[in-house]
């Protein structure tokens, strides 16, 4: 197994599919669709193979040898410029417990989104080609271990996303698409700057003993690799690590999206076609928090420790603010969008705790939010396809007309509320357990529990307004779910409930790595580890 470059395959398979599709004729719509479906299905298969061969006790995080499925070779090497040393960029892929859940999520959501894309009705070729490109970008972000590579993948998905929202979106698609594009690019320039700053601050020792500047994320985590005068080196008394951390954080926070950088999200969600909303909520938002965990945290443990209260504060604001705003929404999709803001707040809160439980909870919440919100958006899509309206007050009594649909809605809504027995509960509970255990953010945690209440408030209120009460006569001819919709909703429901009952299935994957990460955060880049240099 180890010889087979499975991560490269899982990442670039969609590009292969894209090229295949580009060679197809525009009219071969079914071939295009099935090609995409097969590609994404293969991706799921590869993800399962990954999982089957996954070593649950390998930590990863900062230790290269305990990463799994590593593929590493020199990509760019420029030697002999005296004042620069060797320029070295690796093609470096690998997974550990932080990324494995995200890889699974990406494969799953892409597959579901492909099914959901079945009724895209124009310019199919372009749609599926861009869709697959987007898929590669997302997958790449989660498996890249070289900062440069990470950044390339990070930016790679901007353009497809722009087009997917802009061409196949709703009435205000142009506004939403450009807003998404500019907002996220704005965020990523900060990431770029910090990336360059880090590059000049740390060196990697090559096999032959020479020291070169490095983009290798793992090497950047080692405080003994830093040069004494690097801009972002802890050894430099005038270092800019604090500012760099903030910049990096803003870059990632925009993707999460964290208050007050969240306003692209409602627009993008509302205007995007259903499968893209699913991808957006299911995977893209996780890239922000994943980036923080993969890059901000272990490279800047010192600043992370200083700023944990603030991160928790923003987590709390996200939770409560998002919930309140969701409560006031009249558009079904916008409501779900704001509920995402609220739910991502839990991830922030859990991460801020820097405890095993909190961080485990945060990653688990990332996965669960991916599945649950994907399901919610699919649900919105089902009703929007049929009625072409999303106004919550336009509906009423749909439960009578569409009982099976209502059943899935109930599952998804209660999962979103954090009902025990469903996956969301475990992750939220772990987040709270972790965050509450830390004295400095305890008050924030207590305030955040208000989110549980508000969540129930807006979800149930919506459930009631749309599905309960007398049936609105307009909708008396609505059809219940069809096969394709079952095919999307059933797997997600099963996963949600399965992980709610047996969370260890997912927690065990990440646990070792999270332990390692948390240990690392508490012990590295302290005065002692640095002065030891």
């Amino acid at each position, binding site marked *: 197994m180890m010889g087979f470059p499975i991560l490269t395959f899982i990442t670039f398979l969609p590009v292969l599919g894209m090229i295949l599709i580009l060679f197809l004729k525009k009219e071969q719509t079914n071939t295009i669709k099935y090609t995409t479906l097969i590609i994404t299905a293969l991706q799921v298969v590869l993800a399962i193979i990954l999982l089957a061969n996954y070593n649950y006790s390998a930590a990863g995080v900062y230790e290269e040898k305990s990463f799994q499925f590593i593929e590493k070779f020199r*990509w760019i090497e420029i030697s002999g410029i*005296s*004042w*620069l040393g060797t320029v070295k960029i690796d093609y470096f892929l690998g997974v550990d417990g932080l990324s494995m859940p995200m890889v699974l999520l990406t494969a799953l959501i892409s597959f579901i989104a492909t099914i959901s894309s079945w009724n895209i009705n124009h310019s199919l070729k372009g749609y599926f080609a861009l869709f697959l490109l987007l898929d590669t970008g997302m997958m790449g972000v989660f498996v890249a271990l070289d900062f440069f590579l990470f950044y*390339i993948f990070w930016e790679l998905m901007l*353009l497809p996303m722009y087009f997917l929202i802009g061409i196949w979106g709703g009435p205000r698609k142009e506004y939403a698409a450009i807003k998404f594009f*500019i907002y996220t690019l704005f965020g990523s*320039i900060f990431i770029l*700057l910090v990336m360059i700053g880090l590059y*000049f601050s740390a060196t990697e020792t090559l096999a032959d003993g020479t020291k070169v500047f490095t983009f290798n994320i793992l090497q950047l985590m080692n405080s003994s690799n830093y040069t004494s005068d690097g801009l972002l080196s802890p050894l430099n008394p005038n270092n800019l690590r604090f500012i760099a951390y903030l910049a990096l954080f803003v870059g990632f926070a925009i993707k999460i999206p964290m208050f007050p950088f969240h306003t692209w999200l409602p627009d993008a969600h509302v205007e995007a076609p259903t499968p893209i909303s699913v991808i957006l909520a299911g995977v893209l938002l996780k890239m922000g928090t994943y980036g923080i965990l993969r890059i901000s945290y272990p490279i800047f443990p010192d600043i992370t420790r200083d700023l944990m209260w603030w991160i928790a504060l923003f987590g709390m604001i996200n939770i409560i603010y998002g919930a309140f705003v969701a409560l006031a929404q009249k558009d079904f999709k916008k409501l779900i969008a704001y509920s995402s803001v609220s739910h991502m707040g839990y991830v922030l809160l859990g991460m801020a705790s820097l405890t095993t439980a909190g961080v485990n909870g945060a990653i688990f919440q990332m996965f669960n939010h991916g599945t649950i919100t994907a399901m919610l958006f699919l649900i919105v899509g089902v009703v929007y396809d049929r009625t072409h309206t999303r106004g919550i007050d336009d509906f009423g009594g749909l439960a009578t007309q569409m009982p099976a649909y209502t059943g899935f809605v109930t599952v998804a809504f209660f999962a979103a509320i954090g009902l025990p027995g469903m996956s969301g509960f475990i992750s939220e509970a772990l987040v709270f357990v972790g965050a509450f255990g830390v004295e400095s953010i305890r008050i924030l945690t207590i305030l955040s529990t208000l989110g549980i209440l508000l969540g129930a408030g807006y979800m149930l209120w919506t459930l009631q307004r749309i599905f309960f009460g007398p049936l609105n006569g307009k909708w008396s001819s609505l059809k219940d779910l069809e096969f394709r919709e079952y095919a999307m909703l059933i797997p997600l429901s099963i996963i949600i409930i399965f992980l709610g009952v047996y969370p260890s299935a997912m927690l065990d994957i990440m646990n070792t790595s999270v332990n390692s990460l948390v240990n690392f955060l508490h012990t590295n880049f302290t005065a002692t580890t640095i002065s030891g240099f």
Partner: protein
Amino acid sequence: MELNNLYQSLNLILPEIVLSISLVVLVLADLIFHKDKRLIPYIAGIGIAITGAFVINQFNVSGFGFQSSTQTMRNYGLIAVDSFGVFFKLIVIASSILIVFFSSSSGEINKIKGRIGEYYALIYGMILGMFFMIIATDLILIYLSLELLSLSSYVLAGFTKLRDRNSEASLKYLLYGAVSSGIMLFGISIIYGITGSTNLYIINSLIQGPHINLFTLSFSVILILVGIGYKISSAPFHFWTPDVYEGAPITITAFLSVASKAAGFALLIRFVKTTFVSYIDAEGVWALINVFDWQSILIAISILTMTLGNFSALWQNNLKRMLAYSSIAHAGYILLGLVVFTNQGLLAILIYFVFYLLMNLGAFLVVMLIANKTNSEEIDDYDGLGYTSPLIGVSFAIFLISLTGLPPTAGFIGKLYLFIALVDAKMIVVAVIALLNSVVSLYYYVRVLKHMYLTKATDYTPQIIPSFGNKILLLILVIPILVFGIYFEPIINLAKNSLVILGL
């Protein structure tokens, strides 16, 4: 001795000599084939290609030419041939060849087939001017080459005479250019007065002495900067750019935006480097002579240039005009490579120019192909084009994304190296401003994509099917952008070997 010197010097300007001979051949051919001018473009192209071969041949040559034996001080010459110069000459050659190809399929140029010989002759004149600009180390030669380049381009800007705007562009270019170079000449005359020499190397050693009137020196340098600033269209000397770019034939606009700008930058860099840098330390940092605050002035100009360029481009509806502003903004970015005064910055400039050549010419090619069909460069006429003309649309998208500087395109690598240089020099604030600028630029580049893709094609949307040659041309530009975006090692290596600026 004298003759020997002259012979060696002639050896150094072999490409220029070849170019001149080609020019003569071209003019003769024009006279001979005055009925059927189909051969002219080929002759022009071949001439440039041969010149290019000689330029490449020069890659490892270096030396000073045309030293004056009467000089009492250290004996440098009128010209310096070094790898830096060769690199820029290659940029010029590459863009010239592409322009020849562009011209042969441009609708505008094809309407003036009868005068095609003159057209190419003038382009040769420009190239010759640029070549000398790139290698000149004497203020007088600088002035002369600048004028040679300018005079040819004034004419070319209005060459087609197909529309009112051609003449207008020509006139504006003329007035603006002539005045700028006049002011520059006045500055040169003052510097001559202060130092008693027009040779950059001599000036360099003189201004390190104590008896220099710094105010006068600054005055003259600023006047010279007017002339160079105009050539690279940096703010606040950029005003001619949008008008001329819009009014001139697209081929010439493209040529001005790349080759002319490259030559201007080569001139600026060589001027600053040879005149005002005392030594280069082991880290590659240039030590400026303490007579003129080049760093601040260039930072100011650079930021002003990119900001003005980007913000002005926001609402342009004419694609050529938008690209004009975009090229102004890019001049601002490229200047950033100079302001750090390190070899790292120089490297970034060289790399940037390679990619800039590809993406900017690519963008102009697409605009030209569309204008050939629609006779318009208005953004509204691009509505839905992405659907009717997929190749054009996709290529244009890639060019624009590359101009924005997003991975995985070459434009990103260019910007990356610039920012690496800035961060290395600890100029973080400047880097942030530049990055924010590139966010602004995204808006107008994507606006084109919006028109091409987010608007549905209608029955009136033209369908543009490029000829086979143009398809090849497009691919020649697109593929490197994508390849270099992912694998940029060769370009870096090339640029890395082209950092030698003779002197000191």
